[in-house]
């Protein structure tokens, strides 16, 4: 059981990493959601093997509540930030009509500039 869960964490992280490296902001956001799920599952696994009863139940080992509390906090935080990111993506779409993540404009300009210390690549 714990091997299956560990594999699921790995697959979630792999898919998330792949999506985060895309140019389309929508895919990046989906990638971040998957990474967040992976991390939450990892937290849950940190509490030991699944199957133990919660605080009240039969005798024997109890499930550790602390990682579950941490996962809950992490879920809420990821949820909030993803919502904010979606709002940014919408604003970006309103402004540019596109959901591509753009390059640093100033960086491009400096890459084009020659070695004169005051040339910033702007057309003179």
């Amino acid at each position, binding site marked *: 059981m714990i091997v299956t869960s560990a594999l699921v964490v790995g697959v979630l992280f792999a898919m998330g990493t792949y999506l*985060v490296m895309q140019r389309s902001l929508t895919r990046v956001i989906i990638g971040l959601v998957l990474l967040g799920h*992976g991390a939450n599952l990892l*937290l849950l696994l940190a509490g030991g093997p699944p199957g133990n009863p919660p605080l009240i139940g039969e005798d024997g080992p109890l499930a550790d509540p602390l990682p579950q509390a*941490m996962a809950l906090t*992490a879920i809420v935080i990821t949820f909030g930030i993803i919502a904010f990111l979606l709002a940014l993506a919408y*604003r970006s779409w309103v402004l540019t009509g596109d959901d591509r*993540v753009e390059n640093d*404009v100033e960086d491009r300009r400096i890459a084009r500039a020659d070695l004169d210390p005051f040339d910033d690549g702007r057309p003179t």
Partner: protein
Amino acid sequence: MSTDQLIVVPVVLPLLGAALSMVVHGHRWLQRVIGAAVLSLVLAAAIALLVEVHQQGVVALHVGAWPAPIGITLVADLFSAIMVVVSAATLLAVFVYAIGQPRTDSLSHWFHPVYLTLAAGVALAFLTGDLFNLFVAFEIMLMSSYVLITLGGSRDQIRSGTTYVVIGLLASTLFISAVGLVYAATGTVDMADLSMRLEDVPVEVRAALGALLLVTFGVKAAIFPLFFWLPDSYPTARTPITAIFAGLLTKVGVYAIVRTQTLLFPADEPSLLLLTLAGATMLVGVLGAIAQGDMKRILSFHIISQIGYMIMGVGLFTVAGVAATIFFIVHQIVVKTSLFLVNGLVEFHGGTANLRRLGGWAHRKPFLAVLFLLSALSLAGLPPFSGFVGKLGLIEAGTDEARWVIVAVSLLASLLTLFSMTKIWAGVFWGAAEDPVAGGAGDAPSPPLMLGATAALVTASIVIALAAGPIYDLAEQAAAGLLDPTAYRTAVLGS
């Protein structure tokens, strides 16, 4: 209120203030009064806490009276207390500046509440004694910074803000994964408890956990090679926001690196990994700065370069090295923030931060030129300014350990820093503008609050240089406390 409970003030008061500020939104003057009152009280409480910690040793508060390691603990050792005082003072100065700057806090009703939650997040990051709470503190701080950096919603802000949020969220995911793995390996997230339990963890696992946390905090602190997001995103925000980010946010990342590396993963000898990262950060940051043609971007690259010096001191793992790092952080927070505030004034008068389109301000605004010169020389590390004391300490600590390469790199980076500061000086304050912008206020008087806040911070940096002896003694005591965590453990866990 007992003195132990002072420790919650820097966290709880700004949160209450933020709530109140939200309730009265629409009444800007009321919001301003609330913000100024809260931040002043926090500064007073922080100073009282520093005095308390200096006299009594480490102060720990078990929140809700749940004993560690079960409950949440807030801990103030000398290092935390110093950081809280400096950050509270900077937050207050930048707040006053933001009130003075036209079109900043009037941009949105949400500026005041979000600024206060940022203050709470920063204070909690310094004061928490628990790894998971450190994550929560980072999130409070980052969430506020996401809102602040995109306040206004211009096209450029949205473009760079998106990168900033994505990088922040990625680092947070790594952080929470690291917390999960640490808990799986040790069964605790209380840092004092962890520092003992990690000793029993197999060395490979320990190294992996240490590396994961280093990468996480490395993103926040913008060390090489994880710095690329910073110079793109910081310059797009309003000046006071960039200034407080530059002064505080990366330093919270550095604080976390110092705390975890010294408390959880202590080493007996200098860490080659940290020293290499430090050297690369210094050089890449300063070379990036030289290439820029915009004052705000030059300063943003310098944030990165200076982070290298802080990592250098930690990498040495000696009392002298860590003490120099602590002194250097204090100096950096003040000087870096004041440089950005000067940049804001230059933009206010000249209408731009582009070096080619500015010129001759030394004659038109001589006082502004003096403020810039004092901060710039301090940043470059010229005697008798505070940067000199910090760098001297770092270089002495490096030569003590016979780490000549990093000493040479740090000297070279200092020289290049001076070069890029003269580039700003020549571009902004000397000569004539090639293609002046019409939008600036020109020779009109500077808004008194903006000028006053900047002058206050520059004065503070001079005071740091004048009082370098006592402050350095304090930094040395703090460093000794970091490298020998017995007092920290006793305060948190009991004997």
